[in-house]
């Protein structure tokens, strides 16, 4: 199992390419992009190899190999499981050891990891190739590729890690890369603001992650006696009754906060739309396909924690499903009022992430992961399509109402791939989105979460509606953008700066009006469309290869979750209903745009105007966060700190200074002048005076001296005589 055993190469190679590009990229003929593309390509091939070997491993387990027999014998513990258990491939090194606690760095390769590796590397590879054309002539081309490589490496590190600590490291790194890439054109204030907002909002979620990771340590310690961060042990411990429900609940809540932050759930979703300030390939890679799904991945990875913590098995409303459901609706609603095509897609991403989290919340593990898989493809397809439109069709603008329209005839390939992506997203049979979204709805219904089934259907309606609006505004109707070549540099939003435009941009869209994009852009689009069409068939009922290959097979891990995790059977009625819902929504929107429905409602009726204002202001959440929460924390704290500084610290210093001066004065006056000087002067005076007194013996008169002598002799003689 070479590819599985050496899966640690998959994150390592992009990491090395990051270093190489950073150090040598400027001097290379293609400015480092060749290193980036080849590194990701190698990682992709390694991931494919790993996927193939994993599939073999699964099939061997079902078949008659010794590994399978071993697996089955363990599998008797989970007797209801008809799937044979397959052990993940584990390799780790211990980097810290103290009193039984071992901290390791390692890989855990099972179906989920392999699937994620595949998704990340293929989308990253396609984005790398796309960026060769899209970012041509950019001012920081080399650093862009370096950051892309770093991101790919970090995401892969996150995905293959076998312990929550390493996962945390990867998580933080992808956050940093997201910050770097959103703020790629940081010269415009709006972009750097967006980058900071993204970073800080996900950071708020990361508080949850850090707390959660620490708590996982103690969960394992409660269960096994020795604490650790290992994921397999964590999953085992979560189902262990020795660990109190409160601890598991709090761990799940903390990790849920992390998911909310990173995967853009309500209420921390506000950073995602602003993150569209970054280059479009970045949006496709990070904010659609891979980074934002890190939260969902976390949820899938340590699912027993959530399952036991939120008591998902007992039906009813649990925080995970609820937040996911709310996110589905608010994201979809907001997508309606956006003029910027990327923002529509961003809100769409938020909504779809809501679907995934909701699926996890209703016990539909396979459905959530499968939706993650398919969503990556069609969302990346949509984003890259939008990028293609802006690159060649609307002079780097993303405003649908102002600069797009009627692009169907100018950019056919982009149109068709975008259309395929839209249909997949809307969940139209037989494209990928249909299968994955339908599975979520089926599981919601099956597992007694009828409420969320309804939410899911409403969300499907809204999805189809806004995507129809989006595609209509972009590709249908009359072309609204400027056609003449540019004499003046245009001021546009946050895409290439005028400086870049005036510089070595060598494509000639300006001279010719909208046209189809270059092959480097369209080929990735077609590849993604291909997956958008066919990826869904992996989980075709009774074929169910996705489930078979990628479900977790370690029975002890998901022992009592297995009954719930059995995906529901394909429900044809529900499937039909969901397709009908989507089609209806699309038709209504088309009718609106064809003028068959009342127009300009928001301008005529105050009710609709208020509703639109509410949506346009994004539910005033940004206002709440920035002006209310942040300001109210910042203001008093800043004032308090200032007061403390002026009155306490300064006073301490002043009084210390005064005290020192007074002490100095006292010392000078008493100790120095009177004491020390007095002592010294006193000694001198005493010496002088005594000298003066003694001097009186120095009369200079001979007879006086003689008298002294004789008197002394007489006295001595007398004394001698008396005492003898």
């Amino acid at each position: 199992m070479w590819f599985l055993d050496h899966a640690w190469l998959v994150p390592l190679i992009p990491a090395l390419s990051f270093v190489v590009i950073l150090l040598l990229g400027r001097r290379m003929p293609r400015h480092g992009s060749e290193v980036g593309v080849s590194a990701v390509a190698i990682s992709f091939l390694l991931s494919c190899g790993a996927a193939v070997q994993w599939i073999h491993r699964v099939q061997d387990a079902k078949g008659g190999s010794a590994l399978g027999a071993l697996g089955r014998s363990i599998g008797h513990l989970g007797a209801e499981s008809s799937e044979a258990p397959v052990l993940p491939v584990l390799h780790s090194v211990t980097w810290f050891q103290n009193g039984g606690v071992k901290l390791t760095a390692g890989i855990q390769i099972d179906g989920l990891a392999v699937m994620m590796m595949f998704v990340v590397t293929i989308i990253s590879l396609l984005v790398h190739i796309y960026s060769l054309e899209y970012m041509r002539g950019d001012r920081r081309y080399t650093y862009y590729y370096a950051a892309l490589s770093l991101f790919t490496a970090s995401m892969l590190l996150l995905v293959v890690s076998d312990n929550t600590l390493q996962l945390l490291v990867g998580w933080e790194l992808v956050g940093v890369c997201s910050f770097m890439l959103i703020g790629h054109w940081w010269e415009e204030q709006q972009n750097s603001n967006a980058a900071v907002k993204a970073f800080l909002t996900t950071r708020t979620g990361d508080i949850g992650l850090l707390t959660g990771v620490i708590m996982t340590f103690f969960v394992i310690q409660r269960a096994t006696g020795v604490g650790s961060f290992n994921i397999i042990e964590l999953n085992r411990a979560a189902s262990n009754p020795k660990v109190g429900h409160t601890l598991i609940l709090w761990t799940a809540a903390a990790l849920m906060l992390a998911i909310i932050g990173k995967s853009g759930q309500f209420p921390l979703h506000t950073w995602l739309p602003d993150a569209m300030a970054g280059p479009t390939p970045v949006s496709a890679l990070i904010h659609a396909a891979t980074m934002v799904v890190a939260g969902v991945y976390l949820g899938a990875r340590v699912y027993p924690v959530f399952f036991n913590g939120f008591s998902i098995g007992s039906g009813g409303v649990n925080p995970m499903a609820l937040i996911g459901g709310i996110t589905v609706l608010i994201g979809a609603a907001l997508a309606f009022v956006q003029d910027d095509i990327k923002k529509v897609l961003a809100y769409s991403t938020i909504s779809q992430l809501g679907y995934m989290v909701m699926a996890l919340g209703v016990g539909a593990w396979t459905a959530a992961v499968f939706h993650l898989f398919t969503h990556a493809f069609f969302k990346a397809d949509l984003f890259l399509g939008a990028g293609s439109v802006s690159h060649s069709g609307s002079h780097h603008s993303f405003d649908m109402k102002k600069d797009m329209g009627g692009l169907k005839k100018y950019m056919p390939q982009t149109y068709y791939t975008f259309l395929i992506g839209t249909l997949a997203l809307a969940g139209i049979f037989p494209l990928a989105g249909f299968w994955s979204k339908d599975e979520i709805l089926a599981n919601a219904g099956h597992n007694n979460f009828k409420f969320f089934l309804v939410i899911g259907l409403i969300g499907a309606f809204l999805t189809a509606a806004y995507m129809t609006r989006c595609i209509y505004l972009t590709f249908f109707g009359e072309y609204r953008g400027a056609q003449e070549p540019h004499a003046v540099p245009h001021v546009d939003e946050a895409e290439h700066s005028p400086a870049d435009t005036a510089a070595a941009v060598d494509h000639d869209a300006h001279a010719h009006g909208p046209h189809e994009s270059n092959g480097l852009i369209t080929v990735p689009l077609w590849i993604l469309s291909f997956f958008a069409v066919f990826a869904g068939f992996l989980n075709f009922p009774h074929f169910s290869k996705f489930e078979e290959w990628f479900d977790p097979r370690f029975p002890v891990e998901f022992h009592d979750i297995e009954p719930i995790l059995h995906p529901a059977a394909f429900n044809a009625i529900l499937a039909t209903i969901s397709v009908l819902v989507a089609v209806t929504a699309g038709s209504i929107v088309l009718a609106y745009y064809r003028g068959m429905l009342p127009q300009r409602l928001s301008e005529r009726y105050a009710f609709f105007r208020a509703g639109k204002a509410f949506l346009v202001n994004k539910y005033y959440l940004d206002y709440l966060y920035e002006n209310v929460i942040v300001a109210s924390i910042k203001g008093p704290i800043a004032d308090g700190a200032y007061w403390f500084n002026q009155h306490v610290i300064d006073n301490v210093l002043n009084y210390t200074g005064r005290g020192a001066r007074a002490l100095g004065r006292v010392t000078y006056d008493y100790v120095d002048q009177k004491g020390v000087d007095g002592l010294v002067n006193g000694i001198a005076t005493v010496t002088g005076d005594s000298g003066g007194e003694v001097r009186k013996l120095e009369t200079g008169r001979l007879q006086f001296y003689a008298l002294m002598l004789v008197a002394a002799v007489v006295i001595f003689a007398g004394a001698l005589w008396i005492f003898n």
Partner: protein
Amino acid sequence: MLLNQFLILAAFLFCTGVYGVLARKHAVLVLMSIELMLAGVNLNLVAFGAFRHTDIGQVFALFVLTIAAAEVGIGLAIVLLIYRNLHSADLDDVDTMKG
């Protein structure tokens, strides 16, 4: 004759000489008092020489005598010098070593 009578007489002379040395102002008088002391010493020596029936007493007294004469000569020369410098032979005036 008792030995003591001579010796006590000599002691008396000596002490009188001491008084004179210490108490007299004029330098020549001081020298005279020194002579008194030496007279007492001579008497002492001779008395002992007679007592012991030896010559040393006389001989020693002879030497003392000689030396006394020399000393008076020198002393008077010094007094003369003092008189020349200070125009007074008063020993109270010889106090440049005062202080």
